[in-house]
Structure formats: C-alpha cells, structure tokens
C-alpha cells in the first residue's frame, strides 16, 4: 500500500532542515517520514498511513533523533521545522528502531511459511533491513486459537497483530462503518467487532491491504498461493463504472486475488476498493462461464472449435439482409470501435448501437467542466443529485466522506434515501419532480463546488438535467457523472447511440443480430427486446457468460472477460484506463476485439491493424472525443478524456411522462445485488435479494404488511417481490432493487430506463 504521502518539493513555503547531514527542504507542515522519503531516506513505519488521517504514533517504529529534543521522536507525527537537525541512521536512532522491532517480534509467531503475508510482509522486510538481527527473548510466544473469522471474507490471527490500529482507523475514520475496534487493554488488546458480530460493510477488504503483518488475511485467498509463485498485473476493475485501479494476482491460469495497487491512483480510488471490486473475481470462473463455442443448426446445438464458430458467424452475418450490432456496456473501446468498423467496411448498412441509457437531454450537464473523483476531496461543497452512490458507485462514497471530514458541506437531492444523506442536508424530491427540487435548492456559498449526478435519474428527467446544468454553470461548479455502465462513457465517446437497433428490430427490419458482451433480454426492457428479437432471423453472440440470449443464439462465441483482455475502459466521469490481461481465460475463448478482427477478415474487409493498441490508435484518430489519447501514454494511471462528456448521439429517450398507472417506481442497484456478486461464491453471505420497499402508510393503503409478497405490474412487464415497510422511504412511490437475477425487476422498465409507474397487489 501507499506508505508515504507524496511531497511536492517545488511547492511554495519550503522550510530548510538537515537530514542525515544534508541540507534539504520540504513544505512547512510535512511530516518528517514523508519529507525524508521524498529525499530518498526511508524511515521504517508500521502504523503510519497518510490516507488514514492524522498520524497516531502507535507503533514507535519511526523513531529518529532530532537535535535538541530529549529522547527519540516519532518521525510520523513530527512536522518539519526550519533548521531542524534530524538523524535517522545515527547509533541512537538505530538503537531505538532495533528495540522496537525486537519488542514487536517478542510475541509475533514468525510463522512465515504459514502466514499468507510471508514475502509481502512489511514486518518481515523491515526486520531484515532495520532490525537487530537477534533477540534476547527466549520465552515461549503467545498462542491463541487461530484464525478467527472477523467475517466470511476476513480472518484474523491475533498473535500476529502488532496493534498498529490501521484497520481500526480505516473502519472508524475512512469507511466510517464504525465496526472495528481495539478491545480490552494491554497484552489482552485485540481487534474485534461488537461482541463478535461479523464485520459487514462495503469496504471491509481494505483492512487486508492495510495490515502490515499477516494478522488480517483474505479467506478466499488464504493458502492459495505464495508471493513467489504468483504474477501480479496492474489493471482496472470492471464491476462498476468508477474505474478503480487494481492489481490482479494470477496463479495457474486463474485470477486468485484482487488488491489495491501499491501505488494508488489518487485521481480515482486512492487505493481503496469496494468489496465487490475486491471479491467478485471468483465469479470469473463460475458455472455460467461460456467455455466452448456453440453452433445451433435446426434446433440442434453443436459444440465447435473457435475457428469454426467464427466461420459460422461470418457465414450468418454475411448472407445478406440487414444486420444489427448491439454492443454491451462491458465491451472495451476497441470492441466498440471494431463493431463500428465491421458495420462500415464489411456489412454496409448495418446498424450499431450500444446497450444503455440514451441520454438525450444530458448534453448540457455533461458539457459542464468535469472533475476527477480525486477532486471531490478538495471540494468545499458537494451536491449529490439522485442515485445511490454508496451502492452503485461504491468508491464515490469514501471520497464524499473524506471531503466531509475535511469540512465540505454535503447536500443530497433525490427521490430515494441512501447512505450519503446522513452526511449533511438531505432534500427529498418527489419522483419525477427533481427539476423543481433543484430550482428551489438553497446552497451555501462555496469556492470549490462539485456536483455528482446520477445518469439514470437525470436521463429520465431531462428538465432536471437542464436545471442542474444551469445551477452548475452559475456556481462555477465542476461535475462528475454517476454512470451505471462499466464502459458506457467509452462507447458514447465513439459516438454510439442507443436506440437504433431496437427500433429497427421492432419494425422487423433486422435480419441478423450480432451481440457483443450484450445481454438485452435479462436487462432493463427485457420484454421489449424479447418481442423485437422475436422478429430477428438469426443471432450471433460474442459473450463471456451464459444468458437467456446465448442459450438461443445461432452462433455463440466465448469471449474474454475484463480480467483476460487488453483494451481501454473509460470510467463514468471520463477517464481512459487500460485493461491488462492477467490470464488467458478458457482455452476456446478469445478477446472480443480479436474475434471481431477475425470476423472482418472472414467477411473480406480486413482492418489494417491486428492489435488492441493499433485498434485504439485508429479509434483515437477517427473519433474527436478520443483525440490526443495515446495507448502507451495511458500508462498504468490512465488519462482524462476531454471530449467524452457532451456526446450522446441519436438519443431520443422514451416518453417523459411516466408510462403506466399506479405508484412511480424508483429503482436502485445494491452493491452485492447484481449479477457479478451473484456469480462470486465468496460474496454469497452478503448477497442482497430484491425487495419492494414502501412507506408504512403506503403499505397500509395497499394492504401490504412487512414480509408480504407483492406483484408489480408495469406496461412493460411484471414481477413479484417481498415487501419491506420502512418509514425512511417516502410515501407516494415504490422503491425496488434491480440487478438481482431471479427477481427480474428490470422487466418493469422500458429499454431506455425511462420513468414508469407500477400497479401493486398482494400475491395469493
């Protein structure tokens, strides 16, 4: 993890001091450990972690000698002063560091061949580099029953703990879930939860990364591998649109672990990951993974080789008739661009569409100056409009909490209650009346205002998008889009619209449909798509996981997941970042872009490039929104995409007046409720089912008690859900959870996720 805070040695207000005999400078107020590290001097630390807030000086590992001060000082909590004389390697300082390590190791079991942190353990490393080399302790070490489960994801070996407080500080001060504490005192101190309850939260896995010894370990990864027999690759998470930077661990061809990067991306996730991002990898090899190409011929399904399937797909697509191409939100920029090239060069007249929210009416707000997630920290006013960021764009929650801790005012406006409401002023809007709420919004004066706005909520209310754009413009605010789709912004940047194929299919004009990581039948508007696809003659699916669509496609070609392919994702707020494959995936699968290039060759229109990098270069040259981006220069941290924001072509949203009768439906996705969480066995214990949440008054009116089962019916479809009555939810609306595979709340929604009303009745 990030041990030392970055120090700007060129900033104003430098003070000069002496470090191990050298005259050096650092900005006033910089902690000695950071200033020393910036000048190439490493002071060993355990408890210090700049991202956890002010230092606590708990471990005493960073003892240094400061001339004129009695005794040794903790460098983590001593700011640099003009003319300070510091010695980090003097005999006195060395003696202090030796002593601390000898003391820490008095009870630490040194079970490195057993401990998962062996080889990745700062205690081990620092003992070798800074330790005394021998110990005077000969007494037997402490033994506890081990390990205890702090949760179903995290185990604690208590004797390894050096009580640095990092995990407790993360829980108390960063995630603010307030669940982890240090219990008892003295030799009996242990990290614990309230009377042994499970440590349940959305960001709990970060304490594993933070632990400088092997006291906290990941249960899914425990004993799976050793640091010397794994391969780590920096990549980007593909489970939500935040674009968090991750490190993927591979062993024996499978993803074994996902962790934060040692050098975090401060513009995005700052090294913290949500538990979905960290633990959902287990679903990559789940039972619904497509492992073999299939060709369906007159009702019979034949397993095929990859080449055969591509040949068959080319045959199906090239036999004439109009082709529709549907690109799903998980497709990379390269896959989207190749789909467009396929339509342009090989299948003239083919329609290409992305699966997602059309977003007409969002241009005004999208064209306001954009901010990166890291900019939220420095804001003094954060306005969250719509959505449920803690559940849908997890890492945003930590950023907003951090801003609030630094003194920012937080204002939330929207129809549904959510976790960020408690951080400041909450303005509850009626469903469909967001614009009125925004017009009436009274905000305090602020120099640095940032607006976070939910793509789906504002797309459903374009007048609210306009009102918000005016507000942001007047106040000089920067904006961050809370998108829903992993690479929705990347596909928009290609100029890809979101309505053509469905409209054409409805009219019976599509003869053959090619889907690329697209799953329209199981998503919003499933019934609409089902009806439209009933008129399509043949379907070719390039997909990673089995779905209703792949089960009936003419040709199915297994594609790599984001763990297995090269390419670029553009995060919801417009940051282009590179995916790097850590495994090859199933033998008979291939990256989507490779399959598309092969298809273009088969169809007689080979593109003049054959790598992901060259494809991206072609896309950047052809699409103004991507202009200036260079694949290699994206490096490991990515770069903001300047022109992605305003582009939402061909967007004609559904009717603005809600369709149907009854209560307006307000939907949200839970972090552990979507298909990714369902695929990962490790997350089974925190999975949340879908539910219908009603205000108790509304429940009474409809004759629905807590725990009853209700049927919801909209003009598009119907589903049945268990009912929960909750006074925190306002009357006058129905709140339901989307994303849960078996619940099918998506069936209630139109394909463009526009506003809808539902009739509710008791089941049975």
């Amino acid at each position, binding site marked *: 993890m990030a041990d030392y805070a970055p120090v700007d040695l060129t900033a104003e207000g430098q003070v000069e001091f002496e470090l191990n005999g050298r005259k050096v400078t650092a900005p006033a107020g910089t902690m000695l450990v950071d200033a020393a590290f910036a000048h190439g001097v490493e002071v060993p630390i355990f408890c210090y972690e700049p991202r956890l807030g002010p230092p606590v000086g708990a471990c005493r590992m960073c003892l240094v000698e400061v001339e004129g001060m009695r005794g040794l000082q903790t460098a983590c909590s001593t700011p640099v002063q003009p003319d300070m004389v510091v010695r980090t390697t003097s005999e006195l300082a060395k003696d202090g560091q030796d002593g601390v390590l000898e003391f820490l190791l008095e009870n630490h079991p040194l079970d490195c061949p057993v401990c998962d942190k062996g080889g990745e353990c700062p205690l081990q490393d620092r003992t070798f580099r800074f330790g005394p080399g021998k110990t005077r302790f000969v007494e037997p070490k402490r033994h506890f029953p081990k390990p205890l489960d702090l949760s179903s994801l995290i185990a604690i070996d208590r004797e390894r703990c050096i009580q640095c407080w990092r995990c407790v500080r993360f829980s108390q001060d960063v995630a603010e879930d*307030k669940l982890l*504490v240090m*219990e008892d*005192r*003295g030799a009996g101190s242990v990290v*614990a939860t309230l*009377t042994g309850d499970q440590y349940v939260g959305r960001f709990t896995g970060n304490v594993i990364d933070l632990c400088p010894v092997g006291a906290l370990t990941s249960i899914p990864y425990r004993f799976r591998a050793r640091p010397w027999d794994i391969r780590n690759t920096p990549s980007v998470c593909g489970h939500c649109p935040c674009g968090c930077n991750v490190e993927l661990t591979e062993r024996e061809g499978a993803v074994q672990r996902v962790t934060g990067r040692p050098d975090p991306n401060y513009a995005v996730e700052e090294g913290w990951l949500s538990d979905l991002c960290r633990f959902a990898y287990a679903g990559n090899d789940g039972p619904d993974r497509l492992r073999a190409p299939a060709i369906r011929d007159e009702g019979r399904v034949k397993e095929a080789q990859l080449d055969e399937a591509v040949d068959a797909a080319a045959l199906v697509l090239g036999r004439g008739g109009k082709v529709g191409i549907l690109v799903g939100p998980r497709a990379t920029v390269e896959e989207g661009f190749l789909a467009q090239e396929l339509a342009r060069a090989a299948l003239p007249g083919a329609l290409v569409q992305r699966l997602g929210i059309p977003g007409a009416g969002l241009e005004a707000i999208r064209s306001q100056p954009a901010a990166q997630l890291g900019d939220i920290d420095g804001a003094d006013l954060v306005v969250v409009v719509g959505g449920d960021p803690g559940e849908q764009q997890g890492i945003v929650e930590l950023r907003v909490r951090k801003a609030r801790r630094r003194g920012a005012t937080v204002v939330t406006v929207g129809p549904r209650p959510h976790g960020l409401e408690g951080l400041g002023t909450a303005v509850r809007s009626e469903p469909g009346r967001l614009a009125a709420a925004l017009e009436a919004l009274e905000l305090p004066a602020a120099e640095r205002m940032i607006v976070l706005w939910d793509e789906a909520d504002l797309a459903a209310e374009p007048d609210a998008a306009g009102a918000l754009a005016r507000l942001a413009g007047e106040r000089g605010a920067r904006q961050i889009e809370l998108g829903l789709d992993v690479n929705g912004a990347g596909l928009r940047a290609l100029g890809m619209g979101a309505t053509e194929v469905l409209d054409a299919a409805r009219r019976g004009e599509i003869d053959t449909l090619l889907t690329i990581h697209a799953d329209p039948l199981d998503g919003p508007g499933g019934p609409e798509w089902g009806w439209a696809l009933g008129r399509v003659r043949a379907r070719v699916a390039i997909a990673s996981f089995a779905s209703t669509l792949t089960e009936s496609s003419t040709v199915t070609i297994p594609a790599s997941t984001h763990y297995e392919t090269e390419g670029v994702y553009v995060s919801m707020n417009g940051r282009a970042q590179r995916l790097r494959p850590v495994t090859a995936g199933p033998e008979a699968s291939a990256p989507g872009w490779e399959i598309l290039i092969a298809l273009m060759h088969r169809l007689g229109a080979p593109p003049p490039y054959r790598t992901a990098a060259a494809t991206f270069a072609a896309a950047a040259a052809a699409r103004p929104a991507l202009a200036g981006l260079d694949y290699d220069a994206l490096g490991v941290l990515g770069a903001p995409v300047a022109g992605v924001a305003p582009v939402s072509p061909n967007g004609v949203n559904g009717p603005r007046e809600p369709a149907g009768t009854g209560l307006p439906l307000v939907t949200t996705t839970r972090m552990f409720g979507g298909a990714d969480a369902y695929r990962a066995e490790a997350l089974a214990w925190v999975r949340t089912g879908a539910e219908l949440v009603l205000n108790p008054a509304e429940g009474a009116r409809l004759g629905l008690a807590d725990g009853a089962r209700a049927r919801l019916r909209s003009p598009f479809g119907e589903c049945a859900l268990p009912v929960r009555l909750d006074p925190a939810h306002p009357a006058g609306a129905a709140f339901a959870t989307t994303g849960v595979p078996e619940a099918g709340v998506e069936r209630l929604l139109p394909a463009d996720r526009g506003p809808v009303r539902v009739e509710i009745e008791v089941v049975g």
Partner: protein
Amino acid sequence: MTVEEIRAHIDPIRHEFAEARSLILPALKFAQTEKGHLTREDLEAVGEATGFSAAYVESVASFYDRLYLRPTGERVVSVCVTLSCMLRGADELLEHVCEREGLPHDGGTSEDGRITVQEVQCLGYCDRAPCVQVDAEETRGPLSLDDADALLEELRSSPRPERLWR
C-alpha cells in the same frame, strides 16, 4: 437501561466534557447500576445516547476493569498482576485465590455466585504489592496467601455492601 434513561442521566453533565466521547464513561457507569454488569443492549443504548457506535462503546467498556461485560458474583476480588505485584508474588496469589474458589487460572465467578475473581492491570498500590481490590472500592495489600484466605472468609460471611454501581 433505556436510551431515554441514559440521556436523562448524561444530559445535565454534558457541558462538563469538552469532547462527546468523554460522556461514554459516565453513561456506562450509570447503565451498569441496573444489573451490576453491561449487556449488549446496554452498550447499544449508551452508543445511541452518546452518538458513538456500540462497538466503540464496547471497546471503552472492555478497557476498564470496573465495567463488567459479564454478570459478576456478589463480591468482586480484583487481583493486580502488573509488574510490582507480579514481582511480589501476584501470580501465586491469583492462582491461590482461583484454586480456592474452584475457578480457572484467570478468574471467573464461583459456583454459588458469591465471589468473582478477576486479574487486573495496575491498581496504583505498588508500595503495598501484591494487592487486591474488593468490590472496586477498597484496596488491600500486601497480601500473603493466608491474608487472602482470611479475606475470602470475610467476604463470604459479610453481607453485600451498597456498591458504587448499585
């Protein structure tokens, strides 16, 4: 103890504390008066009354020897095991007392519910080591093993006094 009762107790003294978390201790002490120990519900109620998580409240409660997270016997004997007392035989004293009461080596409550023995960190009575504290009120030392026997006899035969937490 209910949240309202705890609030009624701490609201009048709230102004005496510069930091809200300092209210946790008087709130816990008050909550303990009801049963002589703190239940999970008490921890949650104190958390709600003071604005801290129940887990944080438990971490405070578990730090202090005079707050009990389990039911105690009628009389509580706290044996100091910190350095001065340890060097003067605290381990033997603790073992002796536990053995006499039929308890595991680190303490517990006797079967008849009369005596609870616990080991505690420093009682600040180093000049009279080894020492014990009775009912969180009276500290005695130095104690020989015979003195400890006599003390236990005395506690068993004397009625339970009005305690700080009752």
